């Protein structure tokens, strides 16, 4: 409830919210720090921080490489927690963890939630954990008041959406298309129909992600979604032009 309320408050006076994605430890925690600062200052409303995993099966080449490079430089899960604690103290927007289930499972589910809560994390995105596999996870999410972000996809039937929504909290993550992160999505008529179906299936705020890359994309989502998610694009930007370029890019999206 915490996360949903916070987002709804932020939505007052804004057409649409912006969520961005960073991969922790890539290219370094240093750079993460700077990027987040710029994002927050440029008006990002929510940030998902990915704890890297060696097998990121739902990620495309950009984020996949970021995961691997981060791990190759020695990033540990505990460091991700410390970093989160630091960041959430500094910035007053919601921060989420995005990671694969094994990171949580191996850490110990309850311990993970406990630490996440201590670190000020308000939501969790776990792309390989459908609710059927997450009974204890969902129960813990409830007791630790951390929103489990469920995912709608273009292949989800209405029935499936209604089922997912029962477990969801904070917001629903609508992936814009089939596939992995990174490639551009065409936000066409078919997409609009799909988004309408999503809307009909939940009362939670709707975030749209996967391939959202430009002001134009975001304009198209206004009125149809509550939050736009920028993923791979900022990672590429940092790779190409450095952390400094992020602020300007984010500002240009609004």
């Amino acid at each position, binding site marked *: 409830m915490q996360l949903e309320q916070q987002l709804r408050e932020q939505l007052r006076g804004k057409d649409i919210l912006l969520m961005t994605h960073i991969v922790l430890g890539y290219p370094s925690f240093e750079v993460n720090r700077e990027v987040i600062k710029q994002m927050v200052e440029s008006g990002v409303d929510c940030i998902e921080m990915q704890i890297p995993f060696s097998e990121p*099966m739902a990620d495309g080449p950009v984020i996949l490489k970021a995961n691997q490079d981060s791990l190759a430089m020695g990033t540990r899960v505990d460091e991700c927690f410390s970093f989160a604690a630091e960041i959430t103290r500094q910035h007053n927007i919601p921060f989420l963890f995005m990671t694969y289930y094994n990171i949580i499972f191996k850490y110990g589910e309850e311990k993970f939630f406990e630490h996440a809560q201590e670190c000020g994390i308000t939501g969790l995105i776990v792309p390989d954990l459908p609710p059927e596999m997450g009974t204890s996870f969902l129960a813990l999410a409830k007791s630790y008041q951390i929103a489990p972000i469920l995912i709608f996809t273009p292949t989800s039937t209405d029935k499936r959406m209604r089922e997912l929504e029962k477990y969801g909290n904070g917001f629903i993550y609508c992936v814009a298309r*089939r596939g992995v992160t990174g490639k551009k999505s065409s936000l066409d008529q078919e997409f609009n129909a799909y988004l309408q179906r999503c809307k009909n299936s939940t009362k939670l705020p709707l975030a749209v992600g996967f391939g959202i890359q430009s002001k134009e994309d975001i304009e198209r989502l206004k009125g149809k979604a509550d939050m736009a998610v920028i993923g791979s694009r900022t990672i590429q930007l940092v790779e190409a032009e450095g952390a400094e370029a992020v602020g300007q890019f984010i500002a240009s999206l609004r």
Partner: protein
Amino acid sequence: MDHNGFFGNWGGAYIPEVLHQTFQELKEEYRKSRRDPAFWQEYISLMSTYSCRPTPLTYAENLTHHFGGAKIYIKREDLNHTGAHKANNVMGQGLLVKRMGKTRVIAETGAGQHGMATATMAAKFGLECTIYMGEEDVLRQRPNVFWMEKMGATVIPVKDGSRTLKDAINQAFRDWVTNVDNTHYVFGTACGPAPFPEMVSWFQSVIGNEAAEQIMKYHGKMPSHIYACVGGGSNAMGIFQRFLGEQGVELIGVEAGGHGADSGAHAIRLSSPDATPGVAQGYKTMFLQNDDGQMKHTHSVAAGLDYVGVSPILSDLWDKNQVRFESATDTEVMQALDLTMKKEGIIPALESSHAFAGAFKEVGQLAKDDAIIINQSGRGDKDIFTIAHAFEDPSWKEFIIDRAREYSK
């Protein structure tokens, strides 16, 4: 398998939401087919006209005398079309694909055997086909790549991670979530999200069903021990299932000992303390991973065993002490291969040679009036580049150098 795809503590289906619907359809088609005797009949008839089922059970007289213990029988999956048990699984899934009306298949491959089998099935069933193969494995198993391409498949070398089997699996999933509407992912072993572990084991069960009948015919009673190598676990499940619960039959899975259990360079999941429970590649099992849950690099002379996870069904049987797990090092495996070639004129795949090595350690102590079965999951002549290399054969090296000189002109 419970309704969530678990076997005891293991298994499940940890899949991206975009695959939910396609898994529903797959499970439904699988359930229907499993209930439909006509499906199994079609499957058996396909396997006996296109592949070579039933495959023989060979009495290894010379090896038996050599070790002086129990009688050694070899189940000859190497005689399948494409040279390994992989054909059983692939042809079965091919029939399902036809029923589901999909037009494209993808697969991961380690040794190349599963890729070969899938490319073969795709050619026969007129399906589009893409094979993901770790870059390192592409290098180890180039001939298989050549044949896959010749059969019309596209082979994509995977350059991420450790560039082996597990990375090929991730990449195949990435393809699948993108092309889910027309594409079926032909999983190659008894791992991955449910229903794959059970479904693959079902198609492979033909091995054990035949073996049971054959051993009764030749030996007059059940075997005392059955040995199978364990990569993902499909050939092991294939031969074990029929004998689970048979009084006096011990089932032994032999894992890849690589440079040794203490070396860190191996792929031993169940018979060493190096693996811990985890969830990856869509399922929960014992993985070789670090304390953070990051998967470790594995090593085996056999590409097809060089894998971080293991069938959840085997993890369950291990939990329940219904299957014993052992390992064999690269060196032991090469010795077992050498002996088998010289004594029986049979060339097991490097993967299968693990089962032979495992059996050879024990068979001399077993009673002469008992019999054991070794599951020869595949033939080794595909592995010429690895085997000739591992034996450091000088004339092989010379031959390659000569050929290269010709090509460099």
